Structures are given as C-alpha cells and as structure tokens.
C-alpha cells in the first residue's frame, strides 16, 4: 500500500479514528457535548474529504476496497447522513435517562461499516462492512433498553433485529460460499475468471439468489420486510433515521456495484425474484402504511414502498445489459440521495419532538394535532418531508421519482411503472393525512423553545430538500460524473 492509496482511505480512517478518540475521551471525561462535537466534526471532515477527492483516479486499495468516484459520492452521502444522525441525537439523548456517549461510538462504527460497504468490490470486505454496520446497529436499536421511558419496545426491537439479521446474514454467507465454490475467488468482478463466468451455472445462480435474500432483508423488500415496522418503531428516532437512510444507501450501493457492474448478466437469473419483490413491496408497503397511526411505523412502511420503487432500476438493466445501465445507475443514485435527504428531514423532526415529549415517537398521530400552530418550524419541516416523500414537484422527492419513471419508460417496464404510479397515488393518502393532522386545531400544549442547533439542522435539511427539487442540476452532474 503506497501513500496515494492510503490518502484515498482517509475518510474511512477518519471515521475509524472517531471511535478510538471517543473511547479514550470517555475513559477520561464524560461530556455529552464534547462527544457530540467530536463526532460531528469527524463526520463532516470525512464527508468533505471524500467529496473533495472526486475526480481523482480510482484506487484499488488491496483487493478488498475500491475508492472511485462512485464510492466517494455515496460515501459522502452516508457520512452526511451519519452527521445528521449524530446532530439530531444530541437533543434526543440529552433529555433521556440513559448514558449518552456510547451512542456516538456505535454510530461511528456503523458509519465505518457503511463506508466499507460502499467501497467494497470483494465479498470479504462486503461481509465485514455489513456486519460491522449491523452489529453496531443491534446495540443502537436497543440503546434505550435501561430507560424507564420506553423500555418495552426498544429492547424487543433490538432483539428482533439481531435475530433476523443473523438469519439473513447466514443466507448471504452461504451464497458467497457457493459463488466461491464456483469461481475460486471472492472478488465480485467475475470477469477475472479465465474464460469468463458461465452464468448458467447452478452454483452461481443459487449463490446469487441466496445473497439476494440477505440483501433483500437489509433493504426491507417484501417478503423480507417483516422486521421493518417493529424495529423502526422501537428504535430511538435518530437510529431509525440511520436505518432508513444510511443502511439503505450503503447496501444498495453495494448491490449496484455487484449486480449492475457485472454487465447485468447476473440479473437474468434473479429478475423474476426481483420483479416479485418489487411488485409486493410497492403494493404492500403502501397498503400497510394506509391507516397506520404511529408516525415512525408509517415511515417504516413508506420506506418499504420506496425501496420497492428502487428495484425498477435493477430490473431495467436486466434485459439487454449495458444499454440502459448508465441511466439506471444514474436514476438509482439520484433516487437514493434524494430519499436519504427527505427521510433524514422527517426523522430529524421526530427526534426533536421526541426529545421534548417521548409520546411523539411511541404514541399515535393524535399527538401531532395542531402542531403547525404551536411549532411552525417543526411542523413545516414535517409537511415538507411528507410532500417530498409523496413526490410533489419542487421537492427532492419529485426528482427521484421522475428518474425512476424515466428509467422505467426507457426500459419499457410497463407493469412496474403502472404499479409505481398506483403506489404513489396510494402514498398520497397517508402522507397528506399526516399533513392534515398537523393542521387540525391544537389539543395539547406544545409551547417549548427549540435550540439554535436543532433549528439549524432542520433548516439545512429543508434547504437541501428544496434545493434538490428546485435546482437539481448540480446533483445530476455529480452523479453523472461519479458513474461515468
């Protein structure tokens, strides 16, 4: 490993060093504020570094990691999401009857895992990244276990996530083993096999199918979605934000590299399964969310639907390989980024609210009635997030959905497109319902003052959501640059 390769790893090293610094810091002095600051600055530096390196030549660092523009861009997105998760967690943990500092260590480890996943082009690094992320998340989901405020749900969610994640990882690992048995190598680029891969081989197909099960679990694709609502509801709001945004971005980034980069040929075997999952996710995700009364659970179902829409980009590359590849990659990347942005906005609002009153995350939508008149900034942010998730024009959500429609039309996936439209119209119902609740006359007193930091986070996320919707050209150019 030379210096150039080492320099390209700096974002990963920075994130890793956050956890070490925090461990040492806690050993000497517990200070929530300092811990949070260190974490945020570390994430910001790492994201900035990753982003500023865009345009440099791709670096294959050992056989395990590839640092190219694709991993830099999506790595930066993952790091920014982590930054927001640390930022919003401060107020949330400050009012909790629970020790706070270890959350940031776990968060930085999970972020490191996500970054590794984004950069990996080797099954070994993929598995390490995935497990680093998942194991940290087990603890994060159940983080409030000792809190008297919401004991029952959070521990249950943590255990469920751990058990189910373990089961799915075993499928994944078995799949990797089968592929290794055929190829004799763990690199995802099967072109290195002499004479090229024989894609009709049973080993490869079964291996890929088993890996898909593991991936589908993390992506909450129906029918591997069962954990999603329970875990989303039980986990602390900042952790749910990480689950909803960073995990999906990282895992799908790997899927894109794995399936799409292999000229889409893997996909022919998996297409039926993927299509089935897309259909089920779009329909069931939206239908389950329809009359859901807990906002976090509702967002869980909504994320199932959104991830279902994303399968369209995978299916689009299957029929004739490279023809639609660049459009599909572009669409997928843009969709992931816009989705991360608006989801973080929604969870930032929920965290801020839960910091003041835990009922906002554990209770029903009734607690949100009249919030618009008492907390205009929070309610306004939530309204914007809902509009964006519904895909309204002038918000980030519209650009993402527009690209998916474009990809579907390009590849003539009429059935999936029809379901996408149907799902979006169903989605309007429950997104608008949330807005309606916010505008009702107030029932309880919510006159508290929001801190400057909280306001700043909300405003930045709102700005990003609007900016991506109104002037998406820079984003599109970055994405096109990254996948070129």
């Amino acid at each position, binding site marked *: 490993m030379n210096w150039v390769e080492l320099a390209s790893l700096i974002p990963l090293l920075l994130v890793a060093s956050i956890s070490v610094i925090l461990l040492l810091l806690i050993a000497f002095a517990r200070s929530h504020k300092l811990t949070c600051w260190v974490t945020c600055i570390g994430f910001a530096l790492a994201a900035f570094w990753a982003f500023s390196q865009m345009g440099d030549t791709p670096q294959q660092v050992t056989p395990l990691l590839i640092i190219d523009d694709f991993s830099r861009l999506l790595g930066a997105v993952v790091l920014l999401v982590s930054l927001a998760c640390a930022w919003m967690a401060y107020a949330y943990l400050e009012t909790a009857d629970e020790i706070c500092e270890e959350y940031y260590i776990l968060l930085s480890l999970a972020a490191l895992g996500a970054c590794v996943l984004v950069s990996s082009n080797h099954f070994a690094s993929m598995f390490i990244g995935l497990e680093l992320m998942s194991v940290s998340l087990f603890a994060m989901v159940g983080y409030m276990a000792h809190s008297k405020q919401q004991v029952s749900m959070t521990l*249950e969610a943590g*255990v*469920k996530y751990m*058990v*189910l994640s373990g*089961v*799915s990882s075993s*499928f994944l690992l078995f799949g990797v083993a089968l592929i290794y048995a055929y190829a004799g190598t763990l690199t995802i680029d099967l072109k290195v096999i002499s004479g090229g891969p024989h894609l*009709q*081989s*049973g080993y490869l*197909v*079964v291996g*890929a*199918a*088993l890996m*898909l*099960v593991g991936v*589908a*679990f993390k992506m909450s694709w129906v*029918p*591997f979605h*069962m*954990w999603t*609502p*329970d875990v989303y509801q039980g986990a602390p709001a900042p952790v749910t934000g990480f689950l909803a945004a960073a995990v999906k971005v990282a895992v799908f980034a790997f899927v894109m590299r794995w399936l799409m980069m292999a000229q889409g040929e893997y996909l*022919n*075997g*998996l*297409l*039926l*399964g993927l299509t*089935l*999952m897309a259909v089920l996710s779009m*329909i*069931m995700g939206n*239908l*389950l969310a*329809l*009359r859901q009364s807990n906002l976090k659970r509702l967002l869980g179902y909504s994320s199932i639907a959104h991830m279902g829409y994303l399968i369209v980009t995978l299916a689009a590359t299957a029929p004739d390989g490279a023809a639609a590849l660049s459009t599909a990659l572009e669409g997928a990347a843009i969709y992931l980024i816009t989705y991360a942005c608006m989801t973080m906005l929604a969870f930032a609002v929920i965290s801020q609210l839960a910091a003041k009153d835990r009922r906002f995350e554990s209770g029903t939508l009734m607690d949100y009635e009249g919030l618009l008149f008492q907390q205009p900034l929070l309610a306004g942010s939530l309204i914007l997030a809902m509009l964006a998730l519904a895909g309204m024009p002038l918000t980030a959500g519209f650009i993402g959905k527009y690209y998916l429609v474009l990809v579907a039309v390009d590849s003539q996936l009429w059935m999936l497109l029809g379901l996408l439209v149907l799902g979006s119209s*169903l989605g309007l119902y429950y997104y608008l319902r949330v807005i309606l609740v916010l505008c009702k006359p107030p029932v309880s007193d919510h006159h508290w003052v929001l801190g400057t930091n909280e306001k700043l986070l909300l405003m930045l996320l709102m700005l990003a959501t609007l900016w991506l919707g109104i002037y998406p050209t820079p984003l599109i150019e970055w994405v096109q640059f990254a996948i070129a």
Partner: protein
Amino acid sequence: MHQLWLIPGLPLVGFFLLVLGHGRFTRSLARLIGVGSIAIAALITLWVALDFYSPGAAQTYQVELWPWLTAGELEVSFGLYLDGLSLSMLFVVTGVGSLIHWYASGYMWQDPDYQRFFAYMNLFVAAMLMLVLADNLVLLFLGWEGVGVCSFLLIGFWYQDPANGYAARKAFIVTRVGDTAFAIGLFLLYRELGTLDLPSIMVLAPEKFVVGANQPTLIATLLLAGAVGKSAQLPLHIWLPDAMAGPTPVSALIHAATMVTAGVYLIARTHGVFLQAPDVLLAVAFIGLFTLLISGFTALNQTDIKRVLAYSTMSQIGYMFFALGVGAWSESIFHLMTHALFKALLFMTAGSIILALHHEQDIRLMGGLRRQLPVPFWCFVIGSACLVALPPTSGFFSKEAILNASWQLPVYGPWFWAGGVLGAFITAIYSFRLLFLVFFGAEKVQPHEPKGWQFHPPLIILATLSLVAGWFVLPTGDVLPSSPAGHPPMWTIVVAIGLPLLGIGIAYQVYVRHKWQGLRLAHWQRLRQFWFQGFGFDGLYRRLFLTPFTSLAQVNRNDIIDGLPTLLIQLSRFLHRLFSQLQNGQLRAYIATLASAAIIILALAISTVGK
C-alpha cells in the same frame, strides 16, 4: 375612420365604470354613463360614415389593435374591419341601440337595479359591436358569445322569479347547441383555409373550395347551425318566446333589433363559403320559409302581447334567411335594418302599454286604448303597417324586394314566392288582430300613460325613421353579391300588395265588427292548441332530450362511476387490514416468512437455469 376603435370601446368603458361603481353612483349618473356611452358611439358612427362616404375614400378599412393569440401558424389579433356591410350593422346597433337606451332610462327608472341594468346593456352593445366589427372569425366568436352571455343576464334580469331564470337558462343552453356547431365550423375552416381572417376567407374560399364539394358544404352547415341558434330559426327557435321574460327594452334591443339578427350577419359575412355550398344555401331558404310560416301561424292566437311580437320577430328573421337563401343578399340586410327600426318601435310601444297597465301583458284584458294612449296608438299603427308591408312604409320596400328576388330563383322560385306571400298574408292577420284587440273595442282598463322626455321622443323618432327608411340606400352593394336581375310579372306585385290588405280586412271583420266568427280559431280547439304551443316543438324536445336526460340522471343518482373509486378505497382498506394482521410482531412468524420467501426466491432463480 381612425376613431373606429372608440365605437366598441366606449360602451365597454361604460360597462366597466358602471360595474366598478356599483352601488356608489346616483341614478342620474348611471343614466348619463349608460345612455351617453351609446349615444356618443352613435355620433362617432356618423363621423366614421361621413369619412366612408367622402369621395375617394377606401371602401374597406382594416386595423389591428393588438395581437391576441399567437400559437404556431395561428395568429389571431384584436382587429377591426369596416366595409359597407359592417357599416350598415353599425348604424343599426348604435342608432337603434341609443334610442332604446334612451327609452330604457325612463322605462327602468323605478327598478332598484338600475345601474346593473345599464352595465349589462352597455356590455351587450360592446359585444355586439365587437361581433360586427371583428376582422376575424375568432374575435367575431368572442362577440358572439359575449352577446349570448348578456342575453342570458338580461333575460334573467329579474332573477328573483324562478321562471325568468328558467327562461334565461333555456335561451343560453339552446343557443349553445348552435354555438358548438359554429365553433367546430371555425376549426374546420381553419384546417381547410389556414386562416380565420375575414377578408382572406373571402379571397381564399372561392379559390380553394370546389362548388358543392364536401368541405364547404360541411363548414357552411356548421356555420348555419350557429346562425340558426342565434337567430331563433327552426329547429333551434324555441328559446325566443320565453326570452320575453326580460325587461321590454331588452326584448326590443337584443331579441328584436340586434342580437337575433347576428345569424343573418354571420351568413352574409361568410357568403364566400356559402356560395360554394349551394345545397346549404337552399337549406337556408327552406329554414327561413318554414320558420316564417310556422311562427306566423303560432302568432295568430297568442294572448301575450310580447309573445305575439316575439313570434313575429322569428317570422321576420325567417324572411331574412329566406332572402339570403334565394340570393337576395343586400335585400336581406336591408330588411334587417328596416325590421330593426319598426320592431324596436313595436316593442317599445308595447312597453309603454305594459307600463301604463301596470305590467299587464294579456291582450284579452286590453281594449279601446286608442283614445287614452294616442301616441302609442299611432306609433303602433305605423309599426304594424311596416310589419305588414303596406306601401309606402319601409317594410314594403324591403319585403317586396325579397319576394321579387325569390320569384326569379330557378325551379323553386314561384313556390318560394307563394310561401313568402302566404307569410305576408298571415302577418297581416296577426298584426292587426293584435292592433284591434289592444286599441279598439270596449275599454276594459284605465291606463296611466307614462309621460316624459324618455317615452315619447324615441318612439316618434323611430316611427318617422320606420316610415322613411324605405328610401335609404345601404352601402352593401360592393360587399355582397348582387341579387338576380330582372323583374317578375306585374300581377305578382299586385297579389303581394293585395293579400296583406285582405288579411287586414279579415282581421277587421273578425275582431272589430265581430262578424265571420266561423273563422275564429276558437272553433278548432285542437288546431288552436297545436298552434298556440308553437307546433309542439317544446314538447317534442322535452320528449326527445329532456326526459331521457333526466331519467338517465335519475338512474345515475348515486353516481355509478363513483362506485369504482369507492370500491378501490374499500379494497385498499380491506387489504390494509389483511396485511396488518400478518404484521403480528411475533419473531417466529417473521423467521418462518423469511425462510419460506427465501425458498421462493431460490425456486424462481433455479427455474431460469438451463433456459
């Protein structure tokens, strides 16, 4: 001629002033604006006419005020066009219009909505002038729809009575049928000729259309449908009698003198297209003939003074259509002008009678009014004489010219002539029946004649004009095709003069001297009923359109189509409940699902191996 834009502009300004100042102006100020704007427009018309007639002046004047629509090839502008035809119409609209406004300022004085009335009237005149002066058919259509809206607003002016609202809706909806056809005709015309500019159409239509070919025939038919709706001709005539629900000056201005003649103007204006479709032109003649006969028969036994006049208006417009159809283009416009004068006179006189009798309109309750109401009596006599075409009134000149032209039409000529003369005979009977019933016989009521400078002067001016207008020469000769040359035999003229006199004689015998009672329709109840109801067109349309429509609406009361979305909602909720039950929170169920789903994915993947 550069002041031309002021003519439609002033009434429009008047409308805006009256609307914006609603409730803030005194009656006198509203009267000043409402009547003044039209009167000044009439003076400007005179000024423009002087320019027009001055030696060496151009016989057409076109000015583009500003562009309106620009979409690809289509360019439509707010442009005005003046030639002999539109100048003749300008005289009628501003001249008769200002006299009627003058009269209305007295007639409506007691009405609480005085200002709203003049706002509508000014808007109407502005729209009518736009219609007449438009240099393209799109702008003409704007004016066309504008007068339709004003007609709707003014028929339903006393909206507190639901019957008036019904009449307004009926008029609006029935004319809508024609307007839709008109609009489609415009689209077709644009597709065929690529322009809707009126002067260009006159040049292009003879070049691009083959006489009798499908395109001109279809377009002319559609334009004719629009004209028929607006001018209350068969079969879209049923709205006009009900339109009498509006105030009497409205009936005089809109439903006698100007708006209802817009159909005649449209056909004359687009004669280039109609000349390429001789079949449609023949249809115009037949429509006119049937309308003039049917409405004449209907007028014979109406009991409402305004309804008699309404049917006579339809009948006279029938003569205009008849004239257009037989190729007497200029004569038709001439009859339009004379009819505007004497029919406005008749309506305003009727208005004075109605006002004198405290809004009584039933002629069976009138009688012997000639001594108490001398001025209206003599005005009514003059108006009726014009209507019956007694020489030497203006009506005689215009109707004689039409009948002469119809005689010379090949093949159908004498038949058309006979129909027209029969119509004149019936006209004489019903007009003098009206005159005798109202002004002769026993005195049944004590009238209170409205007096003042708003009542008698306009009537007297109109009466004078009606008498002498036969000697006017309209400048339409250069614009419209010339009528067939030659003279019919002498005996036809004698018959045409003699039959109306005979009709008057019969009316005198029956209604004044109470002889020849066998001729009274009272003896033929069924025929009387049939004629009274206007040949049953209302009932026919009710059975053909209204009843099926309302019964369909009855069937669809609960909105069958709405059931589909409702079903979708029910289905979504059902599936939501179903799926929610799967989400039971039990780890073992989740793992079981995960495992079975993995098997399905595996099976699907393996099924592709070897294909």
